[in-house]
């Protein structure tokens, strides 16, 4: 019996998701856990804004404020934004290139569970003696002086989840290079696949510096090394370099997939092919390269000297060129299109001015002398929230609406979606626009309170009101998700009606084997081409219907990651000196990980075959369901 015979029941479903190697199910895992951490980070943001609501507030103590602020940044970047983007990459990119799955399904699962356990480990710090409190950048002079285990939770947790990200990145690279359907040349790949590709390359090159930096940090804190200790001949600035050599590409790892999602949205809802597709592709690659050449602009005020500052200032300004190319291409895609303002399109249109505002303040900060004024002020806070919320988070919300039907087979309510949008969009600008001026008025970032005589009361109060608007928007989105799931109105292949790329040529959600036959790609926007030529069948195919070889589910990735998780506790408490159990825990944890590696290496797992007969039966079932749906009510937007 092959494993497409479905067991139902709650326990069986949970077991299925824990052991799954299916890219679509792993995408759902990424979405759920990323979404959970997004809510955690959101609650932390609300705590920050409540504390800063009025002068001299004592809602949070100074120490707790530092922890909340650190965990807000760390959670949002590493545990919310990246995983949610991984969810879309996993779910959509293999479909867009017509692949059966990702190149390494087992590694895909391993990557997820490493991220998950790393994130859980980091957040357990709240209950185990205090969270990290040296900012998400964790600058060494501050971090080394931090008492308690907060920083160790940070470094060990991020090491584990960093392995996960690296594995995911490599997996996408190999998938996109090797598993494109016949006819899917590089210059026919959808923009979302392209940005996934470049973002994965950035992950490949950017995460090792972070890992090295964090290793040094672990050695300094846990084993008494002196990499960053100036009194012992170390150099505390090196951490900053390592962090930003990783950190600047990291923001492009976040924003490039966001660009990809918006590129898809503009083309779909303007019913036009992307304007300047080639330019968009090369701008993406160029941004990837420039991302590695500008890191020191985060460090203008550390005293690198005028030459270094000038070089990095100029390099930074150059990035505005490819980004500008993208903005104009999107505008020209909309221009003259037959536009429908669905929820994703509204987000996309709102993204352009919001993100451009963040980009412009970025160029302002690239001017090194001006940066001496702006550095470590609320102007910086406003800037990076404009690019990350105005770019990445809007893309995540837009992508959630756009790809929800493809991932879950139901459409999120357009009406509630618009409510979410307006609350979130107004709240976002209300919160952060005014922070530019707080910065110019001299309010430093990362302070837990301010005085009544400093004239910052009103603007801070307005900013807090905006944060509540955003919270209301997110709550409406959650309501939307619950209501849509309860209603459970199934939709067809192409619920938006104007899908252009391959993922819309397949049922929503796709069967576990994706395309029964590998499609043949005849140009950019392959599904659109077939539609325009009146192809009733959807696509033409590159191969006859035949047996499909699929990988088996595996429990090993979960156990392997669990071992790392257990070992981290041992490493963390070993250095207290008074805990005899710490060393055994470390050894047992590593034993679990290496043991499961051995099992994986020695056990032959040849997967299973979906036979042609089973495929035909399954395809007929899908057709019956589609006919039943169309007989009843038209699913989807039109």
């Amino acid at each position: 019996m092959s494993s497409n015979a479905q067991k139902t029941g709650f326990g069986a479903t949970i077991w299925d998701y824990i052991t799954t190697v299916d890219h679509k199910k792993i995408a759902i895992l990424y979405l759920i856990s990323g979404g959970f951490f997004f809510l955690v980070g959101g609650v932390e943001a609300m705590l920050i804004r409540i504390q800063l609501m009025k002068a001299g507030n004592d809602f949070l103590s100074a120490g707790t404020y530092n922890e909340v602020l650190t965990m807000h940044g760390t959670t949002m970047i590493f545990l919310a934004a990246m995983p949610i983007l991984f969810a879309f990459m996993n779910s959509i990119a293999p479909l867009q290139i017509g692949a059966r799955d990702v190149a390494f399904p087992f590694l895909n699962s391993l990557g997820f569970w490493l991220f998950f356990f790393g994130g859980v480990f980091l957040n357990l710090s709240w209950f185990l003696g205090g969270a990290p409190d040296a900012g998400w950048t964790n600058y060494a002079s501050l971090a080394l002086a931090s008492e308690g285990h907060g920083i160790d939770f940070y470094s060990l947790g991020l090491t584990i989840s960093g392995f996960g990200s690296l594995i995911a990145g490599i997996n996408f690279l190999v998938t996109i290079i090797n598993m494109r359907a016949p006819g899917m040349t590089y210059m026919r790949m959808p923009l979302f696949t392209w940005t996934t590709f470049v973002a994965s390359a950035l992950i490949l090159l950017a995460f090792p510096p972070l890992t090295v930096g964090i290793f040094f940090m672990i050695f300094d804190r846990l084993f008494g090394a002196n990499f960053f200790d100036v009194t012992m001949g170390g150099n505390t600035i090196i951490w900053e370099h390592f962090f930003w050599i990783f950190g600047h590409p990291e923001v492009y790892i976040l924003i490039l997939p966001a660009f990809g999602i918006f590129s898809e949205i503009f083309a779909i809802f303007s019913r036009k092919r992307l304007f300047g597709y080639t330019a968009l592709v090369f701008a993406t690659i160029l941004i990837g390269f420039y991302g590695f050449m500008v890191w020191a602009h985060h460090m203008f005020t550390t005293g690198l000297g005028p030459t270094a500052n000038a070089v990095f200032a100029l390099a930074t300004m150059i990035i505005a060129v490819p980004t500008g190319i993208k903005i104009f291409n999107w505008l020209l895609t909309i221009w003259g299109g037959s536009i429908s303002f669905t929820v994703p399109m509204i987000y996309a249109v709102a993204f352009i001015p919001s993100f451009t505002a963040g980009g412009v303040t970025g160029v302002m900060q690239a001017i090194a002398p001006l940066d001496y004024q702006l550095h470590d002020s609320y102007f910086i806070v406003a800037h990076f929230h404009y690019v990350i919320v105005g770019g990445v988070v809007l893309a995540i919300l837009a992508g959630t609406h756009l790809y929800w039907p493809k991932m879950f087979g139901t459409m999120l309510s357009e009406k509630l979606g618009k409510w979410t949008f307006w609350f979130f969009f107004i709240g976002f600008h209300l919160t952060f626009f005014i922070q530019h001026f707080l910065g110019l008025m001299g309010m430093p970032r990362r302070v837990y309170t301010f005085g009544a005589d400093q004239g910052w009361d009103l603007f801070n109060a307005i900013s807090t009101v905006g944060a509540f608007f955003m919270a209301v928007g997110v709550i409406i989105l959650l309501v939307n998700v619950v209501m849509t799931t309860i209603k459970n109105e199934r939709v067809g292949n192409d619920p938006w009606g104007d899908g252009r790329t391959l993922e819309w040529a397949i049922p929503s959600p796709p069967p576990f084997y994706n395309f029964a036959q590998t499609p043949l790609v005849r140009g950019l926007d392959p599904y659109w081409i077939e539609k325009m030529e009146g192809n009733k069948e959807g696509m033409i195919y590159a191969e006859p219907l035949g047996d499909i070889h699929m990988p088996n589910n595996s429990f090993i990735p979960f156990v392997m990651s669990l071992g790392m998780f257990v070992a981290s506790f041992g490493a963390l408490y070993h250095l207290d000196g008074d805990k005899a159990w710490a060393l055994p825990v470390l050894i047992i944890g590593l034993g679990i990980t290496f043991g499961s590696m051995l099992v994986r290496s020695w056990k032959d797992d040849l997967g299973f075959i979906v036979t042609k007969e089973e495929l035909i039966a399954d395809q007929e079932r899908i057709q019956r369901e589609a006919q039943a749906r169309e007989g009843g009510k038209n699913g989807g937007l039109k």
Partner: protein
Amino acid sequence: MAHDTHDIHRSRAEYEFVKRKRATEMRGQLTSFAIMIFLTLIAFTLVAAEFSPYLIVPILLLLAAIQVVLQLYHFMHMGNKGHGMMAFFMFSGMFIAFLTVLAMVTIVWW
């Protein structure tokens, strides 16, 4: 798996073509092997002749770079068809690593 192996039947012309191609490749490998030994000789001579380290170090680094390229193209077949993406990624990685190390060296330690 055994049933996945394919027997390859070549026509006479194909056979000749493959043979000629292999001969060219072999010649390339022998040539670059000779060059590499020669470069190594230069390196040893430089050090044995006790020139100033400021002369030796940059020349040694340059020779090393040439050796790497020869190795990649003639012995590891990077010039063959279908290796474009690998070459692109390797050289991008090297370029970025070089810039990063250069910048670190110049602004941190000088």
